[in-house]
């Protein structure tokens, strides 16, 4: 291996640069290069997000059924039908709001508490922090099956233990009544969502300068005051962004509900995703109707996304 003296090497690189700038000036321009680097991502987005999105908009304005090649353009009929005539859809909208806005505050509070706890250093704190992520890492379809076993109508371990202790006579009706089914779903959703809040907020907490805390403590601030005046302002934005993300994801949930109730009993746990699936894929294959159901989510989620993006920008 030959060793090139440093100066010679610099000259070589300099020569190359001059050559590129002469022949390939485009690559030197930051603007062009940025777009070049963005292209693979952009293509993927175009192919897997934009195309299905616009296809969805197109389908939502047709009466396309799976298996029937002919279909016609029906304008906004599907949207009007859902809003004016489909009682299941109205119920679905209500269910989705309940599901999202009931679970997120719990996830936030528990996640915040967990983050504060884990921010203390103790033995095995790193292991515990990694373990905390488990509910988040395990594929939802699998963890939902675990919940299905817990909530199983006749063979639920909870029911069996309570019956064995003589506390109840008949099985707990976890998924078989409107209120219980929604509560059970929320519980499983909260369990799954806490780690996301916990870990995100934990990252924020580690950015809180310790000297500020020490200064506040010296000035006689109580732990609660220190939390409000020192910690909270620093993690405020991260909490906000995490919350918005969580709302968006919970709105668009599918797997947990599909595994546990399939939208039953009597449609009291349908959310946009599961109802669209039932209409579009589960049965007759009414793709137009299903696309319209999914698209109703769009304006609602767009509002949250805009708020989110604004905050991210103001962070910058």
């Amino acid at each position: 291996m030959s060793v090139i003296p440093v100066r010679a090497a610099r000259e070589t690189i300099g020569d190359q640069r001059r050559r590129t700038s002469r022949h390939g000036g485009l690559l030197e321009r930051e603007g062009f290069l940025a777009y070049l680097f963005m292209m693979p991502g952009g293509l993927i987005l175009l192919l897997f997000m934009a195309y299905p999105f616009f296809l969805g908009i197109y389908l939502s304005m047709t009466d396309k059924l799976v298996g029937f090649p002919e279909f016609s353009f029906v304008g906004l009929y599907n949207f009007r039908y859902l809003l004016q005539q489909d009682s299941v859809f109205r119920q679905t909208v209500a269910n989705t709001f309940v599901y999202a806005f009931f679970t997120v505050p719990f996830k936030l509070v528990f996640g915040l508490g967990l983050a504060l706890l884990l921010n203390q250093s103790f033995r095995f704190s790193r292991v515990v922090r990694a373990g905390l992520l488990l509910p988040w890492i395990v594929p939802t379809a699998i963890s939902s099956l675990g919940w299905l076993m817990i909530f199983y109508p006749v063979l639920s371990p909870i029911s069996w233990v309570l019956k064995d202790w003589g506390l109840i006579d008949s099985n707990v009706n976890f998924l078989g009544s409107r209120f219980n089914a929604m509560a059970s779903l929320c519980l499983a959703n909260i369990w799954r969502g806490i780690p996301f809040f916990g870990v995100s907020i934990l990252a924020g907490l580690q950015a809180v300068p310790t000297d500020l805390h020490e200064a506040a403590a010296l000035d006689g601030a109580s732990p609660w005051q220190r939390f409000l005046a020192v910690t909270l302002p620093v993690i405020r934005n991260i909490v906000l962004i995490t919350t918005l993300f969580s709302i968006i994801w919970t709105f668009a949930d599918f797997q947990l509900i599909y595994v546990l109730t399939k939208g039953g009993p009597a449609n009291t746990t349908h959310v946009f995703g599961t109802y669209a699936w039932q209409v579009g894929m589960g049965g007759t294959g009414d793709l137009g109707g299903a696309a319209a159901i999914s698209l109703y989510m769009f304006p609602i989620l767009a509002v949250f996304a805009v708020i989110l993006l604004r905050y991210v920008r103001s962070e910058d």
Partner: protein
Amino acid sequence: MTDDRVNQLIREATRLRYSRRGVVKRAAALGLSGSALSAALAGAGHAAAAPSRAPARQTSGKLAILANSYFVPAGQEHFLAEAQRWGQENGVEVTADFVSYPDLQAKIGAAVSGNNGPDIIEMWDTWPSLYYQSMVEVNDLAAAAADAKGGYFDWVAPTAAVDGQWYSVPTGFSSSAWAYRISHFEEAGVVDAANNFPKTWDEVFAVGKNLKAMGKPIGQAFGHSLGDPPNFCYSYMWAHGAMEVEEDGKTVAFNKPEFVAGMEKFIQGYKDGFDETGLAWDDAVNNRAFLADEISATINGSSIYLTAQKDMAEKPNEAVVDPADITHGAYPAGPAGQFAIVGSRSYGIMKYTKNLEAAKAFMAWWTAPEQFQPWLESQGGYIVAPQTGYADLPIYVGDPKLKPYIDIIAYGRNKGYAGPSDIKAARVYSDYIVVDAFSKAIQSGDAKGSVEQAAQQLDRIYRR
């Protein structure tokens, strides 16, 4: 007049490829004379000898089959082994996927939309009317399978053919009946319980009350599941004078005062006699609950009984329920009579297949009696054969406890009855409109409101 009926029969027989026996039966049903029958037989081409079998075909390549996962696992093993044996003998690489049936339709939808997927797909009743445009017309295969064993029963064509054309070959009906525990029913005060399942819905509710007091209620699924919940709800609906639609296929006939009264009775009967977690049950829960001695009675295929027999034979120490204590009863009657769902499952060849020859050859081979009968037998009578000629097999008549699974054919109706079993009936079925009327009534206690709301939904589907 007779001429009209003869001509009508000839048209029907040609369209649906009735066997000789099928024509004779229809002629009898229409009340035709002997000479008219001869004319009909001649017109339908049955004067000639039995149709020749399809010639052997050259096959190669791959063949993918998508089917419902079997409720009797031995049947699935049998089918897979046989299909692969055929593949080896004919130089075709055969694969089969078995999925649970809430997922089956999603897979079919994806295959049909993408014009790519399994070559042969199993369909439940009403489904051929959804996908026939993507399926190969198989009138010859269906006719050959029918003729080989005495023709199809009357309930087969209306639930598996589309407008008189076969796009799939019928493979039979997952029959259902009430499975119940003899000892529990005796304890609940039923005399000679082994032979005396309640004959009316009122009697079912009365026994249910005692059973629930004993801690062994009736168990019935009312969740979003395509098997047991519709079996209960359609039977109860028809027995109380309501139906999705009149014979014209347009006039919704669901919101009937007698049905609202029936629904009120049901709400009370459910509270008094049923396991109230039933709203969350799917098709599998009642099997498990029954075999764990949690419930006394449920509507199901013969799979509970067959599993109990298997468990008792293979691991007698672990079996909770003795199959000797299980028997079956017919659907009870209501004010309007006795009803239940019947409908044939079938296997269709998809238009996009790249191996049509092999697919047709496989279907012809499998539905021929030499293969089909062992396949039926591997499921111990769980599937009621679509051809009349299998009716005397020991799997159907050998065990008197299984008789209700055959008897159902006498009073069974297609989904969508009194209308046709068409795409609209399929939609009502897969949107759980009838089932949700029941589960809503249970939850709200409002019989009238639940029936009215479902009637509105039906109206929108049938008016479209």
